[in-house]
């Protein structure tokens, strides 16, 4: 089974199992990884499930749709590889993926 590693802002690492079809946000929440608020519960409407991917995993994560891009635009500490984790569906191909969590969600 594939695994994904979340790295908190303070450097703490959490490596968790992939459950195919579950969103990246839900994967973090279900494994009690701190650092994601997910205030809208995955409806792409709050922007508080912000994560930063590493460059090489951007393609595997797919392209952000308009509503996600709109919210990301308003995220204060966004970067080029920012995504909203509720909009990324995990697959076995994501084995080894590294996901960084921002210091704060807003």
């Amino acid at each position: 089974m594939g695994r994904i590693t979340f790295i908190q802002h303070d450097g703490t690492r959490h490596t968790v199992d992939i459950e195919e079809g579950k969103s990246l946000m839900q994967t973090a929440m279900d494994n009690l990884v701190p650092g994601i608020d997910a205030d809208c519960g995955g409806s792409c409407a709050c922007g508080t499930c912000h994560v930063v991917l590493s460059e090489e995993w951007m393609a595997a994560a797919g392209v952000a749709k308009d509503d996600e891009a709109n919210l990301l635009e308003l995220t204060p500490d966004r970067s080029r590889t920012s995504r909203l984790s509720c909009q990324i569906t995990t697959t076995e191909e994501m084995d080894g993926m590294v996901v960084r969590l921002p210091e704060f969600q807003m």
Partner: protein
Amino acid sequence: MKSGLIEKAKATVMDIGTAVVPMDLQIKGAHLLFNAKKKILRRPDFPAFVESPIPDVSTLAIEDIDVSNPFLFAQNRWESYFKRLRDECPVHYQKKSAFGPFWSITRYEDILFVDKNHDLFSAEPFIVIGAAPEGLSLEMFIAMDPPKHDVQRRAVQGVVAPKNLKEMEGLIRSRTQEVLDGLPLNKPFNWVEEVSIELTARMLATLLDFPYESRRKLVYWSDLAGGGAETTGGTSDTDELFRGMADMAKQFSQLWREKEAKRDAGEATGFDLMSLMLSNDDTKNLINKPMEFLGNLALLIVGGNDTTRNSMTGGVLALNRFPDEFTKLKNDPSLIPNMVSEIIRWQTPLAYMRRIAKQDVELNGKTIKKGDKVVMWYASGNRDERAIEQPDQFIIDRKNARNHISFGFGIHRCMGNRLAEMQLRILWEELIQRFDKIEVVGEPKYVQSNFVKGYSEMTVKLTAKA
């Protein structure tokens, strides 16, 4: 069009005047025009609302239900009215309210849909049921669509972003402690006045680095902006509003100039709103666009004012209505952050936001026509049994408490939500250390408004911790 001349005159006052005429005088000019226009067009004053008992909702035909009644909260009818709409007619059309026809959206999922789809539903020109007083078109991004909204929000949101809040937390905490240490013990007092308003004024003064001794002005101004009869069914008066806004314009531009001078003299600048705006290339010259400048500042104080205030009062009321939850809290203060979200859900300080349909939209079996007013009732969405378990219960350790809809969703989602949560968290952390009992005495008095769900008075008696 009859008003063409007046429109032109108004445009002249606002635009050409910008660079030369001080901002407060421009607002006075708009006030004169507003009054002149009222005379020329014989625009009648919007009648004040007179309170009468609101009937039991089961006695009404569905089309006669009017949830824009500004006494619905005060008379505690809102829960049954919205429940009936959610169950029988979740997308409901009221043809002939005092504010004209409007749609009510009452289920959580439908509200989310409207709030998210800013391409279908515009936040312009205003976000309350009624119309803003003409001429006082402060430019606030809460009532703008992209791309303008995004540019303006980005320019100011740093001040309430968690990074900056960390800087402010210590000051907000010590100012909170001071208030709580001065409260009377074993003696009833008005919680709204002594705690909720005072703390909110201190928080806003901190945010703006506003002269501390004048902090109550911030509350006064934003209360004025909060609503007259024609906007929300409230009680504030339009003439007073214009005068207040002129005074606000004057004081804010003064403060800005002072900060600008400090910056230019090379002094260290703070983490307050104006200092941040002055150090940002996009906003450092904002003062040259007075309506935008004022709008942005006003939005922060209005947005942060009665919302936070009424959550501070509402939390105490909720814990009195659900006393087991207070015991739970005392046994486990680590529940405070979760409780803060639950308080904000239970209270829902802003009952709704309004939109205008930009095209015909099919929603839950109804066709909303282009140009129609659409009101998203957050107060109802937060009590929607379809989305939230036991929604009428106040449960401080509720699972998924953060998923409430009080802050709205989508691009307009409350910018100050982290600040509001922080202020409430600090309040409860400090309260729980000091007091054993926080008893509500009698019934609170409610604000007259269809927009602000809040309290004008609530008597509380404190017992110190042993």
